[in-house]
């Protein structure tokens, strides 16, 4: 087990009290596995991942829970401890490649900076290595692009640069926060392919955050579905797709168009509004939109359970 999250709660102060962006999240990840974190925007995927690397945006804070990485707790790390984990052990790729690179530094130098500071490689050698990394992430004429500034590159190329930064120190775990959302559809597949190839080559575990069922189905081994800060279902890709247990997962599956499907089901949008995290009902947060909701739903504690440990759901019904 490379990563284990127990009961993670991360909160932000809201106008009427705390907003729990991550609510008792439990996740486990074995090395070499790709976990898809699936959910709508605002479901707590990003915050969960930012909690892992200790970069919860202010004024948010982790309230509770335990995050274990390679058997050691990340909760009680000081800044020096974090320095040894971030970049070297856990790499992170942020959603928007437009803004995740420093606009005033050459991209090559931004990669080389990781090599010199994290691996202690001397500056001149770092430059050659950075160029090699640029080649590896598929950037054409890398020695010329070494001297490019971020704004001179396309979104896809910038994301490749960010990937190069994230894997430069060969981390054990790579967290990719919607790495393709801001990109053209044609580029998306290339970037995801690249991530998977690198994952295999470096032998990393990976968390891939996405709101796209298709992406998760195609590239991940396991899936955790999130809703309103809670993990509502967890299982292998096959389990989730063939045999969804939680009503939210089912509704989500029904709401996406299936180009390959032969049966003509028609699209069923999920009724109601996405949840307001400041005013969640007691019990299951999905209950107001669920067609099978009953009075018992307000007593659900959202802990995961299931017939076998490999496929768990938060809905006891």
């Amino acid at each position, binding site marked *: 087990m490379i990563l284990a999250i127990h*009961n993670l709660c991360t*909160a932000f*102060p809201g106008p009427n*009290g705390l907003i729990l962006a991550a609510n008792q999240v439990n996740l486990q990840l074995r090395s070499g596995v790709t976990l898809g974190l699936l959910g709508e925007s605002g479901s707590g995927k990003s915050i969960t991942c930012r909690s892992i690397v200790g970069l919860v945006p202010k*004024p948010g*804070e982790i*309230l*509770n829970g335990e995050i274990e990485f390679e058997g050691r707790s990340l909760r009680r790390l000081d800044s020096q401890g974090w320095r040894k984990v971030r970049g070297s052990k856990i790499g992170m790729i942020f959603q928007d490649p437009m803004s995740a690179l420093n606009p005033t530094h050459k991209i090559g130098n931004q990669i080389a900076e990781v090599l010199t500071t994290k691996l202690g490689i001397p500056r001149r050698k770092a430059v050659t290595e950075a160029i090699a990394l640029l080649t590896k992430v598929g950037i054409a004429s890398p020695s010329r692009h070494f001297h490019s500034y971020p704004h001179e590159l396309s979104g896809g190329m910038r994301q490749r640069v960010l990937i190069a930064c994230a894997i430069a120190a060969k981390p054990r775990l790579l967290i990719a926060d919607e790495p393709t959302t801001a990109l053209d559809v044609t580029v998306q597949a290339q970037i995801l392919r690249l991530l998977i190839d690198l994952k295999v080559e470096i032998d990393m575990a990976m968390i891939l955050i996405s709101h796209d069922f298709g992406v998760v189905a195609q590239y991940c081994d396991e899936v955790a579905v999130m809703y309103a800060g809670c993990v509502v279902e967890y299982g292998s890709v096959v389990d989730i797709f063939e045999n969804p247990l939680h009503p939210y997962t089912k509704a989500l599956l029904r709401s996406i168009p299936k180009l390959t499907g032969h049966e003509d089901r028609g699209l069923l949008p999920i009724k109601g509004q996405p949840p307001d995290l400041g005013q*969640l009902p*007691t019990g299951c947060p999905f209950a107001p939109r669920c067609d099978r909701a009953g009075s018992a739903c307000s007593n659900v504690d959202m802990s995961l359970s299931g017939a076998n440990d490999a496929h768990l759901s938060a809905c006891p019904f």
Partner: protein
Amino acid sequence: MKYLLSHNSRSVGDRLIRRASADRRWSRFSLYLGLTIVGFISLAAILAPWIAPYGEREIDLLSTFQPPSFKHILGTDDMGRDVFSRVLYGVRLDLQVVLVITYAPLLIGMFLGAIAGYFGGWIDTVINRAIDTVMAIPFLVLVIVVVAIIGPGLEGVFIGVMGVGWALYARLARADMLVIREEQYILAAKGLGYSTWRILFKHAVPNLLRSSLVFSVADIVLNMVLLAGVSYLGLGVQPPTAELGVIIADGQPFLLYAWWITTLPGLVFVFLGIGFSLIGDGLADMLGEEFKLTV
């Protein structure tokens, strides 16, 4: 939903909430504190003719250089004039002048900036060049030049500041207008076939007011400092009229043995300035703007 929060996490949560509401309370506190300070000092200034213990120019050669005492709260100057009374009259004059030289340029500048931003084209070019030119000459230098032309006195300050002050507001309003004119509600108003002037003044201008208003509070302080500075140089308000800059300048030769003549009026000035800044800070927070000391 049931939260399984430990005792520790509950206290973390409480701290988060407390901090967030403390921020909100701070901005309100800042506004009220500022209003109190400014209100108190202004009230005293307005009532100066009635509450000042001595006259503005009441000379008493038998009690020169009196240090602060119950009889003379802020002491007396080289001609035995009561510094406290002079400060009251001085603030009274300063406030009157400063309000005029702040808000008249605000109106002119907002009008010109709004037009420039809304219409663009040659109107924008002309107004923009005028802004650049006016801003190219340091404020104080321009006032000094005006004084050189028409002679020392308040007129020079009025003309000088009016001639320059509008440029800042025009720049602010123009920048805002460039954004606003692309907004949906303006496009919608155009779609409804409203007249240009109606759109401009009913729909667009009210939205320019916020940033100008917030800046104007900082501008009040800037203008206070400017007026006092010009008067200190002997180019603005002329002695023996009481004005804070004049009072401070009067005391300068006697700095060593009558420190109160310069120091204490300055303190009143600083308090007043802090009061305005607090108002600006609080106001900016409440309006969701940033309180900038410059444009």
